[in-house]
């Protein structure tokens, strides 16, 4: 935001300059210098990618797969993605026209906004939410319109809360269930209301379902599989969370050909294609990864039960998360703000959590704790947090 370097001219685009840095990033700098910290601030699995997937990657390198792929991604991978979606949700896509393999879901989100938004088009973004949605809408020239989700509603956004915000400029609703940072999941009833709303106002649904496989109770609701919704849903998913493949940077979008083609146009001029090595590994993940994926999911579920009970026992009221790997307890009992709580907890007990306001102003009053950490770490973190709350409760 520095104005007037030297000759008074600012080189940075005003829109970019106006976007605040990620709240998570700020906190990261604080934690990075400390030693002996138990970090519950990590939004990625603590598992290493299953060995058979890594091994498939080595094999692909040995065989000399080091070239570009189709802009859309390897057809073999797109076919596996289509088969997987068919198996899980009973929906069918054309692998040649309706799937785009991207560099992580992050890229897919960015592409989707850039592909659909006219200047000043509005996108409904429920908060608290993942840190990139609002900035991506703004960078694509659009305007995010935030709507708060409530703990009483399981952090599910309701059609009746969205409807008053709809204007002629509204183009899409961004949804993310299972949710980062709250761990909330979607239910069929609420999803059907949202689907009806989208149809009534002719809106597009962008559904980030990267945590779909990490659903612990009930079934995951895939928006594209709801009646009449496939034609107005861009389904975004990837390999990071379910297969512990964050660093491979591999995701995909599935949706109507028109939109996928538009996204591909941007992708081909910016990324060209996702790395072939990661794509080869992803094929292995989809073909043979189910067993390992389930094992990891069961382990998260055990940690979830243990950790959430521990939080509630110490007096940090915690909504029961049914998906992803986050607990989102309220810290009001200490009389502190999210940031104060997080900073004090780090200083006094060396446990890192992420202040809820990093995920939008509606996250104030909460902190995000990731339970993608070993059982021993979680147990030790609970002891330390318990001491902390005991000292500071009002």
């Amino acid at each position: 935001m520095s104005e007037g370097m030297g000759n008074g001219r600012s080189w940075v685009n005003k829109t970019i300059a106006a976007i605040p840095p990620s709240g998570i990033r700020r906190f990261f700098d604080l934690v990075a210098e400390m030693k002996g910290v138990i970090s519950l601030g990590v939004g990625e699995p603590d598992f290493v990618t299953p060995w058979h997937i890594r091994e498939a990657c080595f094999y692909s390198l040995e065989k000399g797969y080091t070239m570009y792929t189709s802009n859309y991604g390897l057809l073999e991978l797109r076919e596996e993605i289509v088969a997987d979606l068919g198996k899980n949700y009973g929906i069918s896509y054309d692998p040649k026209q309706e799937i785009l393999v991207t560099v992580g879901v992050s890229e897919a989100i960015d592409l989707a906004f850039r592909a659909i938004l006219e200047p000043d088009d509005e996108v409904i973004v429920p908060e608290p939410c993942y840190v990139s949605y609002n900035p991506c809408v703004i960078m694509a020239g659009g305007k995010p319109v935030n709507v708060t989700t409530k703990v009483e509603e399981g952090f599910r956004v309701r059609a009746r809360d969205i409807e008053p915000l709809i204007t002629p400029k509204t183009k899409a609703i961004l949804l993310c269930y299972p949710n980062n940072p709250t761990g909330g999941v979607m239910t069929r009833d609420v999803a059907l209301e949202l689907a009806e709303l989208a149809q009534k106002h002719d809106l597009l649904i962008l559904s980030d379902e990267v945590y779909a496989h990490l659903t612990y109770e009930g079934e995951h609701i895939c928006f594209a599989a709801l009646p009449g919704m496939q034609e107005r849903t861009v389904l975004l998913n990837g390999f990071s969370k379910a297969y512990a493949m964050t660093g491979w940077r591999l995701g995909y979008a599935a949706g109507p050909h028109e939109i996928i083609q538009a996204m591909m146009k941007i992708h081909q001029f910016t990324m060209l294609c996702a790395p072939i090595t990661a794509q080869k590994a992803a094929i292995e993940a989809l073909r043979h990864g189910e067993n390992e994926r389930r094992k990891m999911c069961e382990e998260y579920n055990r940690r979830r039960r243990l950790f959430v009970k521990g939080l509630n026992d110490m007096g940090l009221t915690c909504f029961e998360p049914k998906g992803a790997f986050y607990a989102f307890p309220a810290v009001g009992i200490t009389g502190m703000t999210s940031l104060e709580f997080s900073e004090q907890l780090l200083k006094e007990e060396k446990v890192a959590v992420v202040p809820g306001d990093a995920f939008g102003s509606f996250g104030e009053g909460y902190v995000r704790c990731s339970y993608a950490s070993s059982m021993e770490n979680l147990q030790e973190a609970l002891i330390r947090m318990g001491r902390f709350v005991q000292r500071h409760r009002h």
Partner: protein
Amino acid sequence: MQEILELLERNDRLTPAEIAVMLGMSEEDVKTKIAELEADKVIINYRAMVNWERAGVEKVNALIEVKVIPQRDVGFDEIAERIYRFPEVKSVFLMSGAYDLMVLVEGTTMKEVALFVSQKLATIYNVQSTATHFVLKKYKLEGVIMEGKEEVERLVVTP
């Protein structure tokens, strides 16, 4: 039930209370289940896995291939029993393929193990032949990597 077993197989120090929370069961139910599993000999033992090398204690392990002549009515069982009764013998498996019994023996010196094989094992009636292979290094034991844990550095805070 399988989940309880899997948890205990990985860490037998988990308390019934901890298991109950992790699996969303009551502590009483977990206790009852474990007692049943113990009574049924599904759970046959609880004990620590020791890396003796790190403890600085000299132990010699050997894998011995044993060819035997199976006996009428009892097959391999009787001779297997004669072998596994020796305290030096840690494990005995009946194998398919080039030999019949795989015997894992532990001792303090190579000489001691070699003598055990030549004097005790090889001389058992119906043992045709033995072949001894000494263990030089253990990389992974019962699913646990012995040294060089996979310590991967994640960033401390990420979205």
